[in-house]
């Protein structure tokens, strides 16, 4: 097959700002044989890939492959080059991500590839559940991949990623908290069903708007239309035409999903994901916190 990956699977009429960043399940089915396309499955449950996956898809494990085993950070440039190369990915490869839980972890992996400046990354709309719901083929066969050379590239931690210090400097500009309403108000210090990833203090970063990540998704895990997304973020959350937005959640995975929406579907020019998120902020000494449903005062 010599089909190139330039033609995206999502209709341009979707109106998304960067329609080429999102592909449909049908597009993936049509391009499985393309030499220049590598499909990566990124799940919360690491065993899920082994129970059946898209034929030819390779597994990427966010915990063992993308996170540094010691420091709370991502792997470094050499290791990233090794991991990408081991999946048969070169700098020219079109990498399509998909996964469980409406693509939480797929968006997270895509975002890490973005930090390393990988030129062509895409998300499969609807993720793993949609592929299976449509009765498409899955297999337990793990593809044999010959490692290829991926160049060692510096990670850019300033354009799409925010640190705690960046957030402190950001006060006065829009912040989006994508956690559940009870986490936002501070009534609970963890997400429902995830009690161990708790924090010492509950609440939210002052001035942050609450937009739970799932608001961006339809029941089948696909993204809502541009029109609906504009209403949710631009109007209801008050982002307007902002040129600088920071999103956060608990450990940075749900906010990767929102980062993708703001950056690529709505086309905001500067959107950073604060991956330290609440597990850093809510455990840090002397940082300002707001509780309750109000956004809270701008810290002085």
């Amino acid at each position, binding site marked *: 097959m010599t089909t190139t990956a330039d033609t995206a699977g999502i209709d341009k009429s979707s109106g998304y700002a960067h329609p080429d960043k999102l592909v449909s399940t049908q597009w993936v089915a049509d391009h499985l044989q393309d030499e220049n396309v590598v499909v990566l499955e990124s799940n*919360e*449950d*690491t*065993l*899920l890939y*082994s*129970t059946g996956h898209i034929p030819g898809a390779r597994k990427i494990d966010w*915990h*063992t492959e993308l996170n540094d*085993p010691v420091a709370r950070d991502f792997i470094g440039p050499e290791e990233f080059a090794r991991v990408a190369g081991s999946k048969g990915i070169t700098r020219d490869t079109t990498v399509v991500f998909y996964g*469980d839980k409406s693509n939480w972890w797929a968006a997270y992996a895509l975002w890490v590839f973005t930090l390393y400046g990988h030129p062509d990354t895409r998300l499969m709309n609807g993720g793993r559940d949609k592929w299976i719901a449509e009765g498409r083929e899955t297999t337990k066969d793990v593809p044999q991949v010959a490692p290829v050379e991926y160049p060692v590239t510096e990670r850019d931690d300033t354009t799409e990623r925010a640190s705690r210090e960046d957030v402190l400097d950001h006060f006065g500009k829009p912040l989006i908290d994508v956690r559940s309403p009870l986490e936002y108000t501070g009534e609970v210090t963890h997400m429902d*069903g*995830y*009690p*161990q*990833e708790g924090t010492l203090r509950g609440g939210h970063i002052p001035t942050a708007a609450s937009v739970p990540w799932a608001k961006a998704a339809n029941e089948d895990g696909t993204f809502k239309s541009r029109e609906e997304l504009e209403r949710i973020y631009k109007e209801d959350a008050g982002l307007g035409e902002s040129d600088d937005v920071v999103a956060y959640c608990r450990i940075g995975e749900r906010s990767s999903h929102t980062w993708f929406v703001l950056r690529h579907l709505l086309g905001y020019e500067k959107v950073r994901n604060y991956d330290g998120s609440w597990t850093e902020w809510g455990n840090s000494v002397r940082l300002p916190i707001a509780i309750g449903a109000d956004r809270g005062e701008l810290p002085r």
Partner: protein
Amino acid sequence: MTAAGLPETLRGIVEDFQSVPDPEKLELLLEFSEELPALPERYAGHEDEMEQVTECQSPLFLAVELHDPRSGQPQAPDAGPASPDSIVRLFVSAPPEAPTSRGFASVLAQGLDGLPAGTVLAVPADLSSRLGLQKALTPLRLRGMSAMLGRIKRNISDRLGSGQTAG
């Protein structure tokens, strides 16, 4: 971390996990997930009557029964304190799209089902770390398994009455 001090079946399972490298540990856990027995008729479709393990990242339900060691009959929860010799029967339900939780449930079901209540209570709380999965899985996952074991033991100690506490 060793397999010492564990009931025989569980010791065998722990030794199997400890004897293989990390990637194979996950394969082994996957095999366990495929072996989780289906719920018996009295529980199938009645997950709402079971106890939900909310510490797990997916819907997981368990039921613990104590059976009389002589008659083999289930002892009613309100029949007064049960004997430490009572036989533990363990039933767990976890969805196929949550293979890690299913795998842990299956390890516990195979390792604990049919043992005397007192023996189950003596299983060390750090069982999940003895499997050696600390690198391959997130701490959140491992704590999910500890929570499962903790709930099983608390169920039993509640039924045995005073003087028997979950370790």
